[in-house]
């Protein structure tokens, strides 16, 4: 009786609901790609065209030529990779220091780093800009990378993960005469792979998404990132929707690939961001 009831509930409530939710989740992706292949005359045709007909193959090529998108794409890739590696290296080093060593001031340092974790860039953007300006870093890669090369979240995540690694492993290596740096690199780091993967994917996504900071410190075209390029393309005169959707689709593609190939780490990074322990 109960079983039958819940089975009908599944067929008539749960699955239609799941289909609806999936539709809402996927619609903007589908619409972006579909419309990048529509001709501009058919863009707002009534009734709406759900499948592009005829197919317009030119949007991607034309958009890519309209602005230096190759450069923007490479800039974003370079910056995101640099920030990700910085976070993995410095975050794990700092996390290692905070979890496996005892020294004066450790608790205070941890609190200091933790307290900046939730500090939004939107609060500090004015002074941060002034500091970076003092360094002479507006319109440089340094200005785009160095302020974000490590972050409280990465340190926190690595510290929590490293705490679960038994001290005996490290002690044994010390007795064998391994240097501290070697212990970190050859014993501790390989054990952290899941945490590093989660942090790496999480950081890469955030760096790929970065918008407000490049907007503030970049004015030179050769340093524009993909998000800046896309928003500029949108506001520039004469841009057509098919081309804009084409550029948007290319800007999304690396994230979609990242999600499909590293799904576990992608999800883990997010669930860790909400973990209290």
């Amino acid at each position, binding site marked *: 009786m109960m079983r039958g009831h819940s089975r009908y509930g599944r067929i008539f409530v749960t699955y239609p609901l799941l289909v609806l939710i999936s539709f809402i*989740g996927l619609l903007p*992706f589908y619409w972006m790609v579909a419309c990048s292949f529509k001709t501009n005359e058919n863009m707002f045709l009534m009734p709406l065209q759900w499948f592009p007909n005829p197919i317009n193959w030119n949007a991607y090529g034309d958009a890519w030529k309209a602005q230096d998108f190759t450069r923007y794409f490479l800039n974003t890739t370079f910056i995101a990779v640099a920030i990700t590696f910085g976070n993995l290296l*410095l975050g794990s080093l700092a996390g290692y220091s905070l979890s496996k060593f005892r020294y004066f001031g450790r608790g205070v340092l941890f609190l200091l780093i933790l307290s900046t974790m939730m500090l939004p860039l*939107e609060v*500090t953007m*004015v002074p941060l800009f002034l500091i970076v300006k003092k360094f002479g870093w507006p319109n440089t890669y340094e200005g785009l990378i160095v302020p974000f090369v490590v972050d409280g979240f990465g340190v926190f995540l690595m510290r929590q993960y490293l705490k679960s690694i038994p001290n005996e492993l490290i002690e044994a290596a010390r007795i064998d005469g391994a240097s501290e740096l070697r212990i970190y690199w050859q014993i501790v780091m390989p054990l952290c792979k899941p945490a590093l993967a989660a942090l790496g994917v999480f950081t890469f996504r955030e760096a790929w998404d970065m918008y407000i900071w490049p907007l503030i410190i970049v004015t030179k075209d050769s340093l524009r990132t993909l998000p800046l390029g896309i928003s500029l393309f949108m506001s520039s005169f004469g841009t057509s929707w098919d081309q804009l959707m084409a550029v948007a689709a290319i800007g999304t593609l690396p994230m979609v690939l990242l999600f499909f190939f590293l799904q576990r780490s992608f999800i883990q990074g997010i669930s860790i961001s*909400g973990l209290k322990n």
Partner: protein
Amino acid sequence: MSASGSTQSRSLRKLFRLNIAAKQALFAYAIILPTLAVIVIFRFLPMLQAFYISLHEYDLIRPPTFIGFRNFIDLVQDPLFLQSAWVSFIYVVFSCVPVWVLALALAVLFNREIRAKNFFRSATFMPVVMPAVVNAVVWTFMYHQDGVVNTILAWFGIDPIPWLRSSKWALWAVILIGIWRATPYYMVIFLAGLQAIPQRYYEAAQIDGASSWNQFRHITLPLLKPTTLLVMVMSVIVALKVFAVPLIMTGGGPADATRVLPLFIYQTAFEFFKMGRAAAMSVFLFAAVMIFTIFQIRLFSRGED
């Protein structure tokens, strides 16, 4: 072995051990130093400097002049600032509350046995994958008067809505996108929380004949409380930071309807070059964020013990 030799070797060993301890501490300091430098220079210092600049008038050209609390007094009398604070408030309330409910509901749904679970879960998760700027561009297109959103509404007999061109609708358009993108993110966090609840509680409840609603009400909700609080705090802070979507979609308009605080700070600083004024606004935003951060650190430390 003589007694004196044994004490000598013991003190030598002690010295050696001390030396090792000092070496290890030195190593520990050395490897945290780069992180500390970045955090102090690019996070902590700017935070302190924000307060300093907020007491000055500064346009990037002439040297800053001290004007005391003038910026703050001007701000609370500035209708544009009050409007902006109000917009941020509305955005936070109406984008966060639905997200909490929807994210939890979806997490409960995906925590059950479902066929083709991976497909549905991935599809639901996709909004998180879309970059913020792309999000803004694509939704601007979808919110077009003759766009796909109005087309779908027309299936239900709803007249076309002038989403981004009307000061009445623009903020709701932005809020809907916020909900669309944030819900799956917090669903993942809720799912992690749900999976940490031991199955035996539910088994015991089932033996006692508790209905699924009662199980949810008396087992899931209480045990999920820490996760729920965390999601609440995180989502509010993230919502207070919203920037790219309103800037790209509406530029803060029409009629200031979507000018959230971060957007107003950005415009004041980098379009009107009133650094002091912008810093004073940051202090207000900081106060709002701080209330929630303190809340969160307390949560953290409670878990830490």
